[in-house]
């Protein structure tokens, strides 16, 4: 089923609430997933999803469908909402220092996922903030480079390059671990 997104947005901008319902239906699950994957806590994800859609409605009058893509605009609002959340709970004021991902030390986490989160943090700990953001948006959220670029307000080519560097960094880390393990095994063999 397809819709004329521009005309739906025009309807929203003229106050037709049923049209905003269509946008909600189409995006609520992906926005919730995006937020949950960064908070790992059901109630927080629900709260931030609500905030995202209310902010979207309040700002839809300013949305320019000729210049921006509604989906990425909504994701950007969701991302800002998550950042605001972490700035508040972790008392961080520097935008770049907000990692946009739950920490195993955070108080509110769904217990089922805590072990998994430790594992994820393990994989990604060596990456820079931007690399981590792009890796997660690409591999977890399934967003294209152009969409990620729109959300982060960078160029799509940069985005692709950062992804490439992140993956090669992870591969290098893996190689280092392999060398270290090999050295360890060799030493043990020599000692024995």
């Amino acid at each position, binding site marked *: 089923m397809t*819709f*004329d*997104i521009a005309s739906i947005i*025009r*309807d929203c*901008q*003229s106050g*037709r*609430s*049923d049209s*905003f*319902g*269509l946008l*909600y*239906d*189409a*995006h*609520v*699950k992906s926005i*919730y997933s995006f937020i*949950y994957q960064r908070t790992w806590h059901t*109630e927080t994800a*629900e709260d931030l*999803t*609500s905030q995202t859609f*209310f902010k979207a*409605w*309040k*700002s839809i009058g*300013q949305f*320019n469908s*000729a*210049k921006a*893509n*509604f989906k*990425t*605009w909504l994701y*950007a609002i969701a991302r*800002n909402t998550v950042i605001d959340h972490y700035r508040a709970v972790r008392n961080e004021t520097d935008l770049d220092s907000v990692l946009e991902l739950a920490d195993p030390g955070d108080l509110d986490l769904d217990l089922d*996922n805590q072990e998994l*989160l430790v*594992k994820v943090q393990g*994989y990604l700990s060596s990456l820079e903030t931007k690399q981590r953001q792009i890796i997660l948006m*690409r*591999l*977890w*959220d*399934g967003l*294209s480079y*152009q*969409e990620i*670029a729109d959300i982060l*307000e*960078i160029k*799509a080519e940069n985005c*692709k390059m950062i992804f490439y560097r992140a*993956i*090669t960094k*992870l591969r290098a880390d893996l*190689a280092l671990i392999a060398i270290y393990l090999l050295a360890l095994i060799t030493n043990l063999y020599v000692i024995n």
Partner: protein
Amino acid sequence: MSLTKSQLQQLLTELYQSDPNLKKQERELISIINQISASAPVININPAFIKKLKNELMSQVTVAKVPVVNYNIMKKLIYSFYGAGAMVLVLALGFAVMNGKPAPVVTKAPTPAQQVAVIPKLNQLGEMAFGSLSTVSAGPAMMAERGAVGMGGGGGGSATAMTSAVAPVADAKRIMPPFEMKNYRYVYKGKALELKSDKLAVLKRVRGLSTVEVPDLISGLGMDFINANSFSGQSLQNLTLIQRSDFGYITNINLDEGLVSIYQNWETWPAGKCGNDNACFEAQRVSMSDLSAEADLIKTANQFISDHNIKVSDYGDPEINSDWRRYYDLTTDKTNYYLPEAVEVIYPQLIDGKFVYDEWSGAKVGLSISVHAKYKKVVSVNNLASQNFDSSLYEMETDAKQILAYAEQASNGGIYYMQEDQANKVETVEVELGQPEESFIKIYIYRDGRNNELLVPALRFPIINAPQDVNFYRKSVVVPLAKEILAERLNSVIPSGGPSLMMKN
């Protein structure tokens, strides 16, 4: 999220484009990508949350109507908004197209005596001709977007990065006082209900306006670079007309929906000509004195109706929407309060002398005309729709207990029931409902990929003692009488465990 083979292949191809040597480490790359993808947390969305949030959103959205536009953001956007060249046609043509002939002239709002006689064009169908009235049928599966979706690579999307429109959202100056969480418990204080009819007509608005011969229209455009008539089976869906003179308008005629919207062509209005001049923008700000003369606003709206032959015989006497004044009175920081630049005048829709109400706000619905407070000119016209209806009999609820149960509990949609515990004490306020009146409720049901507009017989309960809280938006409580809809609404209400259950999984 686990990747499909093609998604994985896509990612690898993109990586090899950046560095062809990586192909030698393909196995390691696959392992890394798969590990990260598989480590995404399992997401179980609570369907009750999805539904509850939608209810909450729709009720707030209905109240908020057109969002207030921030001057500074508008300034940045305006240059890109109307960039595409469009036909400059006279506004009157729009109305000629809408009616399929020169517009009939009905120039003034009906008097109360006329209201009783107003019956729109009805096409009687057999019983239950619209099928199930359930409003929870499957929604749209996906939305077509301009950008590439999913793992489709870097293509598509808008070439330009987003504007700064998002950034101010979080920090924007509040235009309303802070939201205070309370529970509202509705209590009926009227006499015993008398429910006479077990079957009543449900109306479904017939979409679409008269067809326009596409070949004739296209041949008039003088296009010599394509034969647009060579595509078979074409029909005209939308028509946008732009008026570029001072205080101009843009008229959008949706022939498919039978809907006309008119809004200001912003760049031709004084604020649209300010460019980067902040002082100019400030000078356009509306003051309280601009908003004081409400009678003038109605006069302006009536004049616009008369000037453009807008048919208002299906609507009642105009009323001013003064919601902004209520929020203004409640706010403490009045100096930073953004006064609305336009005030909405509503011409309430009438069906056989009964008003039509919005489900979530309990407010009257109808033709909406917004008038600029400073310039005393119409800014926009919304909900100007063709008034042809199919009519079909449906079974109505005759059990007063069911109706009152919904009025007293389900009218909340469960959404404002806040969790109450030792640390988080939430006040519960009792709201009294008075004797109901017969009315219609506007409900949308999603069928065959489209939203269908239904007018369903309803009882409207007035609110006797409306709380003076910022977040109390309801004008009245409207209960649909159609048995199927009411049962569905009742089933979605809070279980008998009490409010605290609502916020849990």
